[in-house]
C-alpha cells in the first residue's frame, strides 16, 4: 500500500514536471517575473542587513558620548569651557573638542563632511591609523597645519589622482589649501566615503568658527558599561546640552537604514502585490483548455486531491526555482555589484555615494518572511482556482 502511494505520488510529480515542460513558455515567464520579485525583495533585505552590520562595525571608533549645545531646538556651537564643568564627574577619561560640519562644493554639487580633530588628544587616536588605506593620522609634534585625511569619493570628486593638494573656500570666499596625508580604507566607506578629516584649528579656520567654540565635545569614558550613567550625570550638569551616546548613534543608523529599507520595501511590496494579482487573475481565469484537462483527468479516475497535488507541485517547483534564482541573483547583485540598483535609495543624501564592499547577511527569519510574502500567495493563487475547477462535475467542463 505504501509502495503504491509512493509510486502514485511519483507519477503525480512526473506529471507536474511534464506539465511545466509542456507549458514551458508560460512556466518560464512566471519563473522570470517571480524570480525578479524575489530578487528585489532579497536584495533589499540583504543590503539593509549588510549596511547595518557595516555601520555597527565602523561606529566602534566613535566617541562613547558626544555633547552638542542646543538652542531653540537647533544645534549651535558649544563653548570649550563646558568641558571644564565636567571635571567633577567620575569616570570621564577625557573630553576632546571636535568640529563637525558640511562643506557644499558648488562645482560638483556635492556635500563633503568635514571633521576637525585633535587626534593626539583622543585616547584611542593611534587606533585611527587602522582605518586608513594609506598615510597616517598626524602624530604629536607633526606639523599638522593644513593636513587632511580624505575618504575614497573625495579623491575622485576633487580629482586628486595625480596630486595631493587641494583648496576649499572659506565663508569669505578666500581659499584655504590642504595637503592630503592619508586616505581612509574602503572598508570604512559607509562613514568615511565623503569625509575630510583635518586639524581642529584648520576646521575652525575653514568654517570661521570663533576661538573657544566647537560643534561637539567628545567624551571618552573609562568603563563602557558606565556610559548611560555618565551621560545622565552630564545631562544634569549641563542642562540644554544634547548628550548622544554611542549606542544611541548606532540605533539611529539602524533606524535610518530601517526607515529607508521600509520605504523601499513598501515600493517592492507593491510590485509583489501586482504580481500576486496577476498570478491570481491568470490562474483563476483557467483557460478552457486547462478546465478541459482537469475534466479529462477526473473522468479517467484522478481524484480531486490528485489534481490539486499536480497544481501544488507545479507551483512549488516554479516558486522554489524562482526563490533559488532570485536569491542567488540578489547575492551576486549585493556582493559583486555593490547593490547598485538600491544605492540611491539606501545610501544617500550626498551625491557621493559610498562604493561599499558589502557582505550580505540573510537570516532564516528573513528567508521565511520572503517565502511567506511570495510563495504562499502564489500557491494560493494557483491551487485554489484548480480546486474550484476540480470540484465541478467533470462532464460540465467537457461540455457534453
Amino acid at each position, binding site marked *: 500500500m505504501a*509502495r*503504491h*502511494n*509512493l*509510486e*502514485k*505520488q*511519483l*507519477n*503525480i510529480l512526473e*506529471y507536474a514536471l*511534464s*506539465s511545466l515542460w*509542456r*507549458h514551458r513558455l508560460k512556466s518560464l515567464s512566471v519563473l522570470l517575473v517571480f524570480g525578479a520579485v524575489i530578487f528585489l525583495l532579497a536584495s533589499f533585505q540583504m543590503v539593509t542587513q549588510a549596511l547595518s552590520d557595516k555601520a555597527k562595525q565602523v561606529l566602534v571608533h566613535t566617541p562613547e558620548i558626544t555633547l552638542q549645545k542646543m538652542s531653540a531646538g537647533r544645534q549651535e556651537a558649544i563653548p570649550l569651557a563646558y568641558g571644564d564643568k565636567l571635571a567633577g564627574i567620575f569616570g570621564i577619561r577625557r573630553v576632546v573638542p571636535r568640529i563637525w560640519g558640511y562643506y557644499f562644493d558648488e562645482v560638483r554639487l556635492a556635500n563633503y563632511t568635514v571633521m576637525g580633530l585633535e587626534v593626539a588628544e583622543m585616547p584611542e587616536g593611534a587606533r585611527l591609523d587602522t582605518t586608513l588605506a594609506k598615510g597616517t593620522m598626524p602624530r604629536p609634534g607633526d606639523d599638522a597645519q593644513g593636513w587632511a585625511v580624505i575618504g575614497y569619493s573625495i579623491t575622485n570628486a576633487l580629482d586628486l589622482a595625480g596630486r595631493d593638494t587641494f583648496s576649499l573656500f572659506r565663508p569669505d570666499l578666500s581659499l584655504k589649501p590642504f595637503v592630503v596625508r592619508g586616505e581612509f580604507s574602503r572598508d570604512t566607506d559607509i562613514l568615511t566615503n565623503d569625509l575630510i578629516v583635518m586639524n581642529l584649528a584648520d576646521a575652525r579656520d575653514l568654517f570661521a568658527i570663533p576661538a573657544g567654540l566647537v560643534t561637539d565635545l567628545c567624551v571618552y569614558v573609562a568603563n563602557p558599561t558606565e556610559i548611560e550613567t555618565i551621560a545622565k550625570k552630564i545631562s544634569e550638569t549641563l542642562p540644554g546640552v544634547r548628550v548622544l551616546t554611542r549606542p544611541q548613534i548606532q540605533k539611529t543608523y539602524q533606524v535610518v537604514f530601517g526607515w529607508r529599507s521600509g520605504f523601499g520595501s513598501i515600493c517592492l511590496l507593491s510590485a509583489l502585490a501586482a504580481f500576486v494579482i496577476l498570478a491570481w487573475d491568470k490562474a483563476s481565469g483557467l483557460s478552457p*483548455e486547462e478546465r*478541459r*484537462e482537469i475534466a*479529462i*483527468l*477526473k*473522468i*479517467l*479516475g*484522478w*481524484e*480531486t*486531491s*490528485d489534481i490539486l497535488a499536480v497544481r501544488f507541485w507545479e507551483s512549488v517547483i516554479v516558486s522554489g526555482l524562482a526563490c533559488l534564482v532570485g536569491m542567488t541573483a540578489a547575492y551576486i547583485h549585493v556582493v559583486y555589484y555593490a547593490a547598485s540598483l538600491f544605492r540611491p535609495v539606501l545610501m544617500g543624501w550626498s551625491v557621493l555615494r559610498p562604493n561599499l564592499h558589502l557582505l550580505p547577511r540573510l537570516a532564516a527569519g528573513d528567508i521565511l518572511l520572503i517565502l511567506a510574502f511570495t510563495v504562499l500567495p502564489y500557491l494560493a493563487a494557483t491551487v485554489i482556482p484548480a480546486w474550484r475547477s476540480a470540484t465541478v*462535475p*467533470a*462532464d*460540465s467542463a*467537457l*461540455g*457534453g
Partner: protein
Amino acid sequence: MGKNVIIECKELSKTYPVEATMVHAVNTVNLSVNKGDFLVILGHSGSGKTTLLSLIGGLTSPDSGQVFIDGVENWQQSDQALSTMRNSKIGFIFQFASLIPTLSVMENILLPLSFGHNPAGSRDLALDILDQVGLADKANAFPSQLSGGQQRRVAIARSFINCPDIILADEPTGDLDEETEKDILALFRRYNEQGTTFVVVTHNSDLAATQKGARVFSMRQGVLTSQAG
C-alpha cells in the same frame, strides 16, 4: 439485485435549468445491465442519453434515484472511492475526442495508469491496442497532428488500457469513416465476447443492428424505453 448485474439504475432523475424552466434530462430511469451485456441506447440529440452516461459513470450526481456499479451505490462513496471505481472499472469514450493536446498519443493512452499500478509492459499493451485501432505508427504523434477520426480512435484505445469491466461510449463512431467504423465495432465485439460490458449511446440506428445480441433502448425527453418488447 441479481448476482450478475453490474449496472443498476433505480428511479434515476436529473434536471437542468434552461432559462426559466427545468428540463428533465433523465426522467425516472430504471435500468439493469448484466455483466457482458451490450446495450445500445438510441436517441436524438438532446434526448438525455449523454446525461444518463454521466450519471452511470459517476461524473455527475442525480437529483433523485440511485446508480449501483457492482452493487455499490455511486454517490454513497467518497471522492477517492468514486475516482478509484471510475479508474478501475469504467472506460469512457466521449462524443468528442477528449485528448490532452500537449500529450503525445502514447502519453494520452497511458494517462489512466498514472496511479501507481502501472502493470509491467503497459507500453506494449498500449501499442497493441493502438494497433487494434489502426494507429500503431502514431504513438509519438500529438493530437493536433491527427484527424478527428484518428483522435477518436486514440480515445477509444485509451478507454481499453485499464481493461475495464464497463465501457461507456457516447457516439463512438461519430467521426469515423465506414471502414474504420467497422473495425471499431469489431473491436467492441471482441472485447464484449471476452466479458466487457458496453453501454453505447448513439443516434445511429444501424449500429444496433451490427452487434449480435445487443439490448436496444430508445431515449426520448429523458425517458428510457426498451425496444425488446
